[in-house]
Structures are given as C-alpha cells and as structure tokens.
C-alpha cells in the first residue's frame, strides 16, 4: 500500500477496551497518528467487567501453556510499567479434596515449564496467611497473582496515549466501514455527544472490539472466528482474603476469589452467546458462585450480596468448536484481513485477557508497522505509564 512520506500514517482504532487503549499507546510511541473511537465510556465492554485478576498464568499452566507464558511475562511487565496499580499480595492455589491433590504434580510441572515461580505450602502455613480458608485444605501453592482494578489499570494506557498525542473519542459509534475495491479507507460514525453523523478517514482501520469483533468485521464482509463467551461474577461485601484464592484443579466454575477493596469477587462461569449486548445473568450461575466459592472460603455462603454481573470473553474459535468456551484457548491473535480475506487496510486484534493487553498491542502494532513498511521499535515494555487520573486531564 502507498502511504505519504511526509505525514505519519493515520491509524483508526475501533474499540476502547484494554486492547484498543494499549494499542493506541504503542502506536503513538512508534510515531504514528492515532485516533480511537468507542461507542460508550472507555472500558465499558468486557475490560471493565473482568474479574480484576492480574494473572500469574498458573491457571493455564496445565493445558494452555501458550497463555500461561504470555500471562507471566505480561504480569511482570505490568508491575513495572503500572507502579501502584495493583494489590500485589500474590495468590494461592488450594487443594481441597483428593482429586485436587492429583492435579498438584502436573500443576507444579506446568508452572515450572511456563516460568511461573511457585512455593508449596502446608495447610497450616496457608491458614496462617489466609485464616478464612477452608480449614480442610490439603495443600496450597503460592504464585504471583495480584488484584487489578479492571478499569483504572487500562485507563493508564489511554492516559499516556492521550498525553502523547493520540485522539481518544468515547461516545462515538461506528455505523459502517468505508470499503471501496476491497480497501477499507475509514469509518462512518455517529457522535452521541452531538447526535451528528460523520466520516473518519484512515490508512488502516483496526477492529479492537473484543466480543463485538464479528459485528465490525462483518461491515467489511469478512468473518472473524470469535465466540462471545460470558461468565458470571459475584461481588460480596467484606474482604475475606488478602491474596487471590484459586482452586487447585482444572478450570471450573466459581473457583477463583479475588479480593478488591472491601469486596470479595467470586468467579466465574462460562457459556457462549450470539449477541454480546444481551448476556443476562443466569440465576443458577449466581447460585453456583456461592456454592463453589464457599468450598474455598466457607464464609462466602453467608456473605452479604453486593452485585452479580456477566462479562463476555472474546475467545478465538469457530462455531461448533466449543459448547461452553472452557475448551478455547485464552491466547490472542491478530488477523491482517489482506492475508486472510484479500481486504486491504483492515486488521482485527482479539482474544487474550486483561493481563495480556500490552502484549496483544505489541503484536498488533508489529503487524501494522509491517504493513506500512515502517521500522519502529516497540517501547511499551519499559515506558512507565501516567496515573489513571491523567486520562481525565486535558492533554
């Protein structure tokens, strides 16, 4: 493709979740002109609703090591570039029954292979750290999980991008893509602040809309294999632990408790939907969060309800491949639609997790720079981000 040699290329990012924010930051540091549009407030889709777990990767160490390695690498980078943004209290994987104990060895092996540090604890050592734990626990393993604020950590990427010159526009909704001769050259938008329609032209349009990826890609007539896979989360009043507590077994329902401020958040479940705007909160899933959460911390059973909600993961997998979404990898992928569909000027970045937002952005920015023939180093591994409050300050 041909790009002006005098002005930097203009990249338009559709979607103001963690991925879009991290990509805006990365591309801005690489010297590109960046505009980001989001139909609501930034982080109002999946990003803000996630569990608030800074993953160590241990969750995926058996069975999805690609995701496990991504998580531990990004976990360490985020601690460096977002100082003060995490409750850095580590996490425990806790074995409750004999079946859990059978998982212990493959778990430790998987963590070692993925580069995740572990420390085995006896039941009494674990109870000394977390007195509310199920007293019948059989073993525990400490790993470097942490708590993140699902909104404010990503907000630091938006803040830094904005102050480095990116244009971030919440409340602008993409109505259509402008496509001529198999080239995407911009978007038609509605500005919800003014109620007016308009167009934004760009050299490359990036679809960073997570579980909405299929809808945006469809505007260019292309398919992306994304399955919106929601999970239910339950927030209870009272901080019942200081570390992140995970059940030591194959990923299941209600087997993680993340402390956050004065709340304990139990999650999650998994099913698949067609429309990411219409998730619902299935009552039986809420009940399951109480039941399963109580196996880790018995006090969950009588804790006071604060909120229950659903968040849709954007998992990579075609229809028919999975029933519940549990079978799908948590890794991420960039689709250059020139390669996959013969459509120029259009890229989709999706999959992944809150913890891997920076890595997803790096991968996608590499693809974009490659398309533009630009050589620019990724600088997001070392660049310490502005505080989240800077997002709301004029640039």
């Amino acid at each position, binding site marked *: 493709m041909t790009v002006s040699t005098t002005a930097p290329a203009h990249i338009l990012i559709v979607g103001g979740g963690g991925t879009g924010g991290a990509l805006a930051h990365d591309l801005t540091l690489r010297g590109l002109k960046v505009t980001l549009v989001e139909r609501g407030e930034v982080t109002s889709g999946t990003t803000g609703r996630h569990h608030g777990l800074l993953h160590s990767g241990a969750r995926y160490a058996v069975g999805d090591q690609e995701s496990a390695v991504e998580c531990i690498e990004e976990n360490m980078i985020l601690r460096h570039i977002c100082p003060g943004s995490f409750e850095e209290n580590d996490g425990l994987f806790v074995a409750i029954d004999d079946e859990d104990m059978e998982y212990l060895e493959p778990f430790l092996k998987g963590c070692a292979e993925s580069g995740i540090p572990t420390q085995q604890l006896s039941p009494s050592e674990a109870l000394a750290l977390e007195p509310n734990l199920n007293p019948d626990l059989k073993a525990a393993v400490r790993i470097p999980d942490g708590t993140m604020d699902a909104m404010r950590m990503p907000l630091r990427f938006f803040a830094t991008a904005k102050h480095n010159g990116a244009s971030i526009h919440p409340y602008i909704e993409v109505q259509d893509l402008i496509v001529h001769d198999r080239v995407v050259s911009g978007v038609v938008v509605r500005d919800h602040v003014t109620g007016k329609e308009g167009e934004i032209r760009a050299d490359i349009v990036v679809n960073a809309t997570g579980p909405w990826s299929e809808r945006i890609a469809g505007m260019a007539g292309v398919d992306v294999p994304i399955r919106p896979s929601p999970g239910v989360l339950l927030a209870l009043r009272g901080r019942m632990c200081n570390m992140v507590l995970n059940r030591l077994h194959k990923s299941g329902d209600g087997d993680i408790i993340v402390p956050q401020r004065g709340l304990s958040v139990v999650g999650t479940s998994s099913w698949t939907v067609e429309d990411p705007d*219409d998730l619902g909160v299935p009552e039986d899933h809420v009940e399951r969060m109480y039941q399963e959460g109580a196996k880790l911390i018995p006090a969950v059973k009588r804790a006071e309800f604060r909120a229950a909600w659903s968040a849709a993961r954007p998992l990579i997998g075609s229809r028919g491949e999975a029933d519940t979404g549990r079978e799908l990898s948590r890794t991420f992928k960039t689709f250059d639609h020139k390669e996959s569909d013969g459509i120029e000027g259009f890229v989709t970045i999706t999959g992944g997790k809150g913890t891997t937002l920076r890595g997803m952005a790096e991968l996608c920015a590499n693809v974009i720079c490659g398309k533009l023939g630009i050589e620019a180093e990724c600088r997001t591994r070392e660049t310490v981000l502005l505080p989240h409050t800077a997002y709301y300050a004029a640039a």
Partner: protein
Amino acid sequence: MQTATDQRPAEATETRRFHVFRYKRGDKASRFDTFDVPLPSRMTLLDALKWIQLHRDPSLMLRHSCYHASCGTCGVRVNGREVLMCVTDVHDLGLDITVEPIANVPVLADLVVDMEEFYARFPDEYPYVRSSEFNPEASAPDGIPAYIRYEDCIECGLCLSACPIAATTDRYVGPAALAAAQRMLEEPRGADTAELLDWADEPDGVWRCHAAFECSEACPSNVNPAARIMALRGVLVGGAFVTPDRMEEAR
C-alpha cells in the same frame, strides 16, 4: 455442558416507567424522555438503562464499566438521590423513576458528566493503595512487606453531587478531595504532610464544609468523607494551638 437459565425482560409482565434526562451538545434545552421497561426478577438500574439503550434508543449516553461498585463511573441521581446504577435494584425504586446526571459536575450529554473538573480538585499524587486492615493477625508472605489493598474511594463523584455547599460555589474543593487528603495524612507513604495541611487549610478547603453530612450518606464505598473532613479540622485546630510557627502566623 452448562445451561443458562435466562431471566430476560421478555418474560416479565410488570413494567416500570423511567423518565430519563436527555441533552445533546447544541440542544437549546434539556428534556426528559419516558420509557416503559419490563421488570424481570433481577434488574439493576444499570440493566434497565442498558435495556433502553439496546431496545428503545441507542443514542442514550451512559457511563459504566465494572458493574460492581468498584469503578465509580455509573453515578446518577435517581428520584433525587445519588446512587451507583450498578448496585441499585429497580424493585426498590417505585413505579415512576426519574434518572438525572450527578450534580455539581458539568454534563457532557444525557447522563454522562465530564469528570475533568472532579479530578482537578484533588491534591497531587493522592494515594491509590493502602495497607490492608483485613486480618492484621495474618502474616504476609515472604517477599511482600505487608498486605495492601486499594483505597476505598472509587472517585464516583456522588459525594460532590450530594453536597449542598458544592451546589452554591464551584470554588469549594469538596468532600472527595478533602477525604483523599485526610487519608494521605493518615498513611503518608512519603507524602509531604505539611504541604497537604496548607492545601486543606483554606476558606474553600476544609473550612467551607457546613457539616450537612450528605456526602457520607451518598458514599457507596464506606469512605465517610464528612468524618474525614472533621478529622482534618481537628488536626488543623490542634496544630494552631500547639505549633509555635502557626501561633506566629495567626498573629
């Protein structure tokens, strides 16, 4: 495979009538639009407004993110009281429900406010994590100096919206900022406490509060800003009597 037993609005027979504040930039005046919303067994105010957005009017602007009173973005006034939409049960609100943006912060459009002025009130570099007070008898693991947790304040602006003094002057820094300053004094973590006290010790700082306690009533996150403002006054008054240089200043 799991099954998802839906509680969708389509199955509900009861409805609630919502009167929603509307304003787009360039409009001559604001107005209220009315929507009837079917009421399922579980429905928060945020669910109801999202239902309106999805099924009645996609141009309705809302702020929301976390859905569990942790991000602080979905503050509104409902029937005149400050709430977070995500933890407000529609069943508790009566048959006619009026929803407006929070007060004392400029409206961007519809229910969305511009938070720039809210954040501009805060002291610089105010804290974000604090020592965890939970289970002080629990020992922190090796490599972690102490358990930490996030500050309670979720920066929602409900306290400022509810404050009767903030309604009379935009110079008053307001309850959220003063509470943040008091928290820094309580747990300084290297902050310059003398500078903070000077910042608070202004006519439009800690002394503007008239102790209506509406802020503490509105706070959804146990910050209790009113008590913190009173505590700041205590420190400042105590300081005026015991510190010689303050005595000198007072003369």
